[in-house]
């Protein structure tokens, strides 16, 4: 609980400092101190706080995973915020950033629906303000407006779903809801109320993770705002949304006997295909990364679908939920690193925004642009899933989790569909590699032929250190993924899907 309190107080302190012009510069210090101190506390005291004893054993590990993720992202984003660029709003921006991180940590650790929802909303509210305060982006009003209106709509849908969940389960606490659904609350009546709850919750969260029917805001918003904000939008809501999906769908509803896998399977196929295919034509870097983030949401949903249909009785590397979490970690590090790398590059006083702006970066005379080019290439390779980087193991785990269902006991009726899902995922990974390689190619294999533009240069900020840290992490995870898989598995929910009994009446029940 202490790290959350520290972050919350840091956010409030930043907001308050913003009111006094003489001391508002101190907010930078406050923010760094809050994040570092919270990190130190998490490091010392790894136990997770619960308002009440939670009977599910995976909650603690899950909460800690998202605590580390939130704090790490907080450091990267803090470092990427260009000091001086938005001096007038610096205190407010930092306060919003801290509360967004706080939101992610709370979603990870939430043991009841209210905290879960408030954590998600904390991220959303903070990102509205950050988008609006942004001065770097080309079209901040469009970005802020689009994100705001669609996001509140999705929050409303999500909350509507939560109210059904609460009404059916009769409790706000997640562990009680799990028991309630396991004992048939989700299929009360003729299961239509349970289906309502699941569909609405999934629809609301699909917006946060940019899954396909709700993805269309992402490219416009990312393009309209700055690199830092795009980075925040592509990691924080996605991680929080995934955490909520895991907690609600995998932790609670999967035991309820609803054929939820049909929905997630369709969404996964659509998301992964749409994201990857449309990304092929993008020339704007943030748009490209927006479609890339959509595609990655699709890959994660493949893991989710696998986890919804089959669960091994013991820990296994190809377990769907663990694969999802591992993939999320790899994705978050690579994406945050890529945006941080882009944010330090400038041409003249203009940020680097288009694919053309990256031309010849690796052939630059200075060391710093070359370092950035190499790191960016590493992040792109990691996102594309090329060994030996973190993303490779993520993709591998996700595909194998789907294949693993295919290899599950022969009674499981979903084998062929999950096999097809894995195949579609693999094809898409190949498509995805194409556009990531375009970025790499622009940096390494083209000359900077533009006469009217200034040379790309690196602005020396703490973001360079952040890029370096992300690079090290990407490599480290890629080289020794074992302990990370271990961590992801201890954090994955233990509810057993009851998919097989309900999905096909003719098939006998397994496990």
């Amino acid at each position, binding site marked *: 609980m202490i790290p959350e309190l520290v972050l*919350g107080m840091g*956010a*409030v302190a930043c*907001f308050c400092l*913003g009111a006094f012009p003489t001391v508002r510069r101190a907010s930078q210090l406050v923010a760094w101190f809050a994040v570092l101190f919270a990190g130190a506390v998490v490091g010392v005291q790894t136990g997770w706080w619960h*308002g*009440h004893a939670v009977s599910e054993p995976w909650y603690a590990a899950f909460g800690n995973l998202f605590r580390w993720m939130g704090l790490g992202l907080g450091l990267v984003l803090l470092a990427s915020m260009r000091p001086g*660029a*938005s*001096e*007038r*709003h610096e205190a*407010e921006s930092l*306060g*919003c950033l801290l*509360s967004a991180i*706080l939101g992610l940590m*709370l979603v990870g650790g939430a043991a*009841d629906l*209210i*905290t879960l929802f*408030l*954590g998600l*909303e*904390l991220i959303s*509210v*903070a990102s*509205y*303000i950050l988008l*609006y*305060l942004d*001065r*770097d982006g*080309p*079209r901040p*009003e469009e970005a802020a407006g689009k994100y705001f209106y669609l996001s509140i709509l999705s929050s409303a849908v999500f909350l509507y779903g939560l109210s059904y969940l609460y009404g059916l389960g*009769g*409790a*706000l*606490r997640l562990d*009680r809801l799990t028991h309630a659904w396991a004992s048939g609350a989700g299929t*009360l*009546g*003729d299961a*239509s*109320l349970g*289906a*309502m709850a699941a569909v609405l919750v999934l629809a609301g969260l699909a917006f946060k993770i940019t899954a396909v029917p709700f993805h269309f805001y992402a490219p416009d918003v990312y393009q309209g705002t700055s690199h830092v904000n795009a980075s925040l939008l592509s990691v924080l809501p996605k991680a929080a949304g995934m955490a909520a999906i895991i907690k609600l769908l995998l932790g609670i509803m999967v035991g309820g006997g609803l054929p939820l896998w049909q929905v997630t399977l369709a969404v996964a196929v659509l998301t992964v295909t749409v994201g990857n295919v449309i990304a092929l034509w993008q020339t704007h870097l943030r748009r490209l990364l927006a479609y890339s983030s959509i595609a990655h949401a699709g890959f994660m949903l493949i893991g989710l679908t696998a986890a919804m249909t089959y669960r091994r009785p013991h820990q296994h590397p190809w377990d769907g939920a663990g694969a999802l979490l591992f993939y999320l970690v790899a994705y978050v590090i690579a994406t945050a690193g890529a945006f941080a790398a882009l944010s330090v590059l400038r041409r003249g*006083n*203009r*940020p680097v925004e288009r694919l053309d702006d990256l031309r010849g970066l690796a052939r630059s005379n200075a060391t710093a642009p070359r370092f950035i080019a190499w790191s960016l290439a590493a992040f792109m390779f990691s996102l594309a899933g090329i060994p030996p980087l973190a993303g490779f193991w993520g993709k591998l785990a996700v595909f194998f989790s789907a294949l693993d269902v295919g290899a599950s006991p022969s009674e499981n009726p979903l084998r062929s569909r999950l096999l097809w899902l894995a195949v579609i995922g693999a094809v898409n990974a190949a498509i995805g590699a194409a556009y990531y390689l375009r970025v790499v190619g622009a940096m390494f294999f083209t000359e900077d032929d533009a006469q009217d533009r200034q040379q790309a240069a690196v602005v020396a900020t703490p973001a360079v250190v952040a890029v370096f840290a992300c690079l090290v992490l990407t490599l480290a995870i890629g080289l020794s993924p074992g302990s990370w898989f271990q961590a992801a598995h201890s954090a994955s929910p233990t509810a057993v899907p009851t998919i097989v009994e309900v999905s096909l009446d003719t098939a006998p029940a397994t496990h």
Partner: protein
Amino acid sequence: MDFNWLFFWILAAITVTSAVAAVLTTHIVRMAFYLVVCLGAVAGLFFLAGAYFVGAMQLMIYVGGTVVLIGFGVMLTARTPFVRMQTTPDQWLLAMVTAATLGAMLLQATLRYPKPIEPPGIGEPAVSPGRLGTAFLGLRLEAASSGTSSQTGGDGEDAESLGVAYLLPFELVSVHLLAVLIGAAYLARPRRRPDQETGREGEHAGAERSGPGEEPRPAAVAIASGGDS
């Protein structure tokens, strides 16, 4: 003799009628007004069902909150009165399909749901705030725990966990509100867009160019100085 059915049908009729009116009217302020009527009638339904606290909250949050909508509507249409919201046929079609799907799902779910618990008679509140109301304040937890379980909510959670469980969300909401206030304060200030002249590909000198001397002129001044001249 029980008049509840009569009041139910009256309130239900008001709810449905005003909801339909809110959809059909093309006039933004009227739309918001019908919405208020609709929400108010729903609050009446809550009162009728004995859920006084929920009803009062419905009044306060939804009915009271819609004033913002009306305020915006009024300010938007103040200059050119009676503007209409144009909806194209394809938008209608899309909205109708979505709404019909949702409506069908809800209707089916509601009709199939097993018969709910008998509503309590008049004077026996089903969900009463009791100590819950003060527990939301985050303090007096012992007061929350001394309340009987029938007062503290229908889900049978023990009152002790109730008091503790909502302290964190309560504090979270206050962080929310602080952030929202900051955002609203900035939103209320007019944005200067120096790069409007140079176009969107122009120099990004937004923050640098704004001089310290110029003071923003909030829109609220128009209200303040309405007749002072």
